[in-house]
């Protein structure tokens, strides 16, 4: 429907896969570069910029702390913070008003699916390594569930686990895509409006823009906090049995 087109800058086919460099690919690179740029001052010698970065880091880890685990999960903090900033910048780049190039890279379900799969694979690997194969399957049926209940519980638990990366991917994608589609709708209304009627779609579009920016932050936060929750749950040992 209403969507900023995906312009191919540099066609590239690798082994029959279409890996063309599109504007979305460039936007993802920019988001990555921005994430690194935010982190670099923190790695240098102590100074004002480094303090700013530490404050940023502190703030983010404090926000994520309720979902992430205790001391055992501290090693995940860099991953989660990187994830947060990457998703945040990917979302925010959609605000730049260069025509026909800048859009939210995360408004593409492939991008969000890739991130969700990353979190999912990481959580499963951590689960196996931390709990062992037996522990992994033990967690499907917690505590003293009778055998007959386990027969029901196992598929339900399996489906619920598999549904998580889907919902993670879809939530971010739908929020970004829908937000920008509505915004483009308002702008289309504005483009066709008579002079006297013009203020209405204009105000609506401006208000929508503010809301969109808030949604960018919120969705980045929600993605990361859910990732933290899933990862913590993967690291948890199963309850007794």
């Amino acid at each position, binding site marked *: 429907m209403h*969507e900023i087109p995906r312009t191919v800058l540099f066609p590239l086919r690798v082994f029959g896969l279409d890996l063309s460099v599109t504007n979305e690919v460039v936007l993802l690179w920019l988001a990555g570069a921005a994430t690194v740029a935010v982190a670099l001052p923190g790695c240098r010698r102590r100074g004002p910029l480094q303090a700013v970065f530490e404050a940023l880091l502190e703030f983010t880890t404090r926000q994520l702390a309720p979902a992430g685990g205790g001391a055992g999960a501290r090693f995940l903090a860099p991953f989660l913070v990187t994830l947060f900033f990457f998703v945040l910048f990917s979302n925010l780049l959609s605000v730049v008003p260069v025509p026909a190039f800048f859009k939210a890279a995360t408004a593409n379900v492939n991008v969000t699916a890739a991130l969700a799969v990353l979190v999912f694979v990481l959580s499963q690997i951590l689960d196996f390594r931390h709990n062992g194969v037996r522990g992994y399957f033990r967690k499907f049926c917690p505590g003293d569930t009778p055998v007959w209940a386990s027969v029901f519980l196992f598929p339900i638990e399996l489906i619920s686990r598999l549904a998580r990366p889907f919902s993670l991917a879809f939530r971010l994608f739908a929020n970004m895509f829908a937000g920008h589609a509505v915004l483009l709708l308002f702008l289309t209304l504005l483009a066709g409006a008579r002079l006297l009627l013009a203020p209405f779609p204009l105000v609506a579009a401006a208000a929508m823009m503010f809301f969109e920016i808030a949604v960018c932050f919120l969705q980045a936060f929600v993605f990361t906090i859910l990732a933290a929750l899933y990862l913590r749950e993967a690291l948890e040992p199963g309850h007794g049995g």
Partner: protein
Amino acid sequence: MEPEGIAWLSAGLCMGLAVIGAGYGIGRLVAAALDAVARQPEAQGGIQRLMLLGVAFVEALCLYALVIAYMLVGKE
């Protein structure tokens, strides 16, 4: 009625119904959060965070319906 008409109609119905549920859910969430903050103003930060998390879940459900509506209308 031709199928395209039915598609548009059902897309509108889909979104309308979904937003009813989402609106009610988010309203209840925010009301609960306000109650909690009223009882304990110093917990506002944590409560606000939890509320936003809950709102994101409910909103996601509504957005699933939006995508179905888009698919019904036939483009994207």
